[in-house]
């Protein structure tokens, strides 16, 4: 029963992705560029949702993982001119290692303490980037000599299919027995432990998966932008946007996070005429949604389906 429902959602998702892959025929390059960024952000949000929605750990530092992956990849490309795929691989690996270093002390603590540790990690990374300006470009940012491709359409397709594959893996994982154990550990870790599940091991696993996808997406994003900076990848505001995207889309749904990310990017585009106030309006809207509509769009959709 559960299996068939999972399969059905994956099939619907595939149909949507295939439909989205024909978008370049109809829309302008500008919109494609926006969507490309939105898809990468969708991956960030999905990775975050796995950790929060399922493992129950609020990670205020998604940008620590993203930034570690992105800057490692960017710096390697800058210094040694390695092929892009080697840089991306190294960045992903660095994010996983960074995630492990962060998770080991952080998972000893729970709730707000965990949130704080992850927040501190972001601030430390930010500090180090500013201090090591010679290597990282400091506050101005890092420019990399290589990009994935200069074609908007190819970039769009890479982002789309990368997001689709990541989403499918994360979603299937969340619906698997491991996902159930994670969910149980998130809701009542004492009981989950009493049932014989190794809670810490599973949470660590969730963290590593989250770090893997965040780092990979971060590294790819550097080679899409051709640059990396604190303001676009690491700042706490960026982390908050990732979190809002996941909450707006609906926690514990994984796929909802993509909807949230696309919605956020579309929203800031629609509100652009407001100028400097557009950010404020987006955050205010998000706050209203959190206050009155805490389950998000996708949350309502699937809940409805399940009851039917």
């Amino acid at each position, binding site marked *: 029963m559960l299996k068939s429902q999972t399969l059905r959602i994956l099939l619907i998702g595939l149909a949507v992705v295939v439909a989205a892959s024909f978008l370049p025929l109809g829309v302008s390059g500008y919109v494609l560029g926006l969507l490309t960024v939105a898809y990468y952000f969708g991956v960030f949000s999905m990775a975050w949702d796995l950790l*929060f929605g399922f493992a129950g750990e*609020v990670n205020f530092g998604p940008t620590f993982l993203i930034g570690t992956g992105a800057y490692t990849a960017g710096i390697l490309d800058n210094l040694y001119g390695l092929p892009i795929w080697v840089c991306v691989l190294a960045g992903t690996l660095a994010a996983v290692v960074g995630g492990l270093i962060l998770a080991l002390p952080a998972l*000893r603590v729970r709730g707000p*303490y965990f949130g704080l540790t992850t*927040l501190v990690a972001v*601030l430390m990374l930010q500090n180090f980037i500013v201090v090591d300006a010679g290597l990282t470009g400091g506050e101005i940012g890092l420019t990399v000599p290589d990009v994935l491709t200069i074609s908007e359409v190819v970039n769009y397709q890479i982002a789309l299919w990368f997001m689709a594959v990541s989403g499918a893996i994360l979603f299937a994982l969340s619906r698997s027995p491991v996902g159930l154990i994670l969910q149980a550990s998130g809701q009542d870790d004492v009981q989950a432990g009493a049932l014989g599940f190794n809670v810490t091991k599973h949470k660590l696993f969730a963290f590593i998966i989250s770090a893997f996808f965040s780092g990979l997406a971060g590294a790819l994003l550097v080679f899409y932008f051709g640059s990396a900076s604190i303001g676009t990848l690491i700042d706490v505001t960026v982390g*908050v946007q990732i979190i809002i995207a996941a909450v707006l889309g609906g926690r514990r749904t994984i796929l909802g996070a993509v909807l949230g990310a696309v919605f956020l990017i579309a929203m800031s585009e629609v509100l652009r005429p407001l100028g400097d106030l557009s950010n404020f309006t987006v955050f205010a809207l998000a706050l209203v949604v959190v*206050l009155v509509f*805490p389950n998000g769009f996708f949350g309502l959709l699937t809940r409805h389906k399940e009851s039917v």
Partner: protein
Amino acid sequence: MLFWQILIDGFAVGSLYALGAMGFALIFGVSGVLNLSHGALMVAAVVAAWAAGNDLHVGPYAGAAIGVLVGLVASLVTYFAVVRPLQNSQKIREDEKEIFILTATLLWGIMIQELIAYFYTNNAKTVSPIVGGVINIAGVRTPANELFTAIVCWIVIGVLWLLVNRTRAGKAVLAASMNPRGVTLLGIELPQIYIAVWAIYGVLIGVAGVLLGMFLGVSSYSVGPLTASAFSIVVLGGLGSVSGALIAAYVVGYLETMTAYLISPAYRTIPALLLLVVVMYVRPRGLLGRR
């Protein structure tokens, strides 16, 4: 010479941190709320004091009063508009409320930051000090304002101590931080205590903010670091322990001052963050934390 300089500067910075973090600890101790809009509320108070002096041309005392008032109002608005609706919400599971309050206050803080940046730009703002001039202590030329800051901080901390330990309402607040259910059984309305605590918090961040504005100056970029420093001080001292926060504030204040003088101002915040990570690893409940 350098030793005395560090001693004096660290003391002033530590006192300021103590004042800012105590309100934060109080709120958490009584209602279990970690207010991530802390830095934004403080900056709002500073900008109000600055704008009052700059645009309305009021004197430094009136400016400071306006700053504290804005801190108080902002704090109460935060409680009524953001925190309370979430605490009373039926749609959110009880064990998820903490996370929702963290996210919502973080959003709220960023909203305030954006508004300040929009109306008053991102430039650093320094509030004109109440006392000027320089005093010579042990061969160190110290701005009188720095001493003033430390003294006011300690007066406010002293008043707070008296309020909590010597008045009836204060004792109710203290009791609520130890055992909320016990307090309701005694017939004390918990929501009223929450309002009182948020009001106290508002005054504390108002005073701390205005002093910070006179001493170091702030910009809308200070929002994140201010929240983080209060958060790390409170965690270092032990969540919910006000005296722990007091000690931790000086530890962080001196650590930062020493780093700034002895290594480089660019590294200022790093050792304190590292210390925090170490404490979390070795002793997650902080220096004086209970549990």
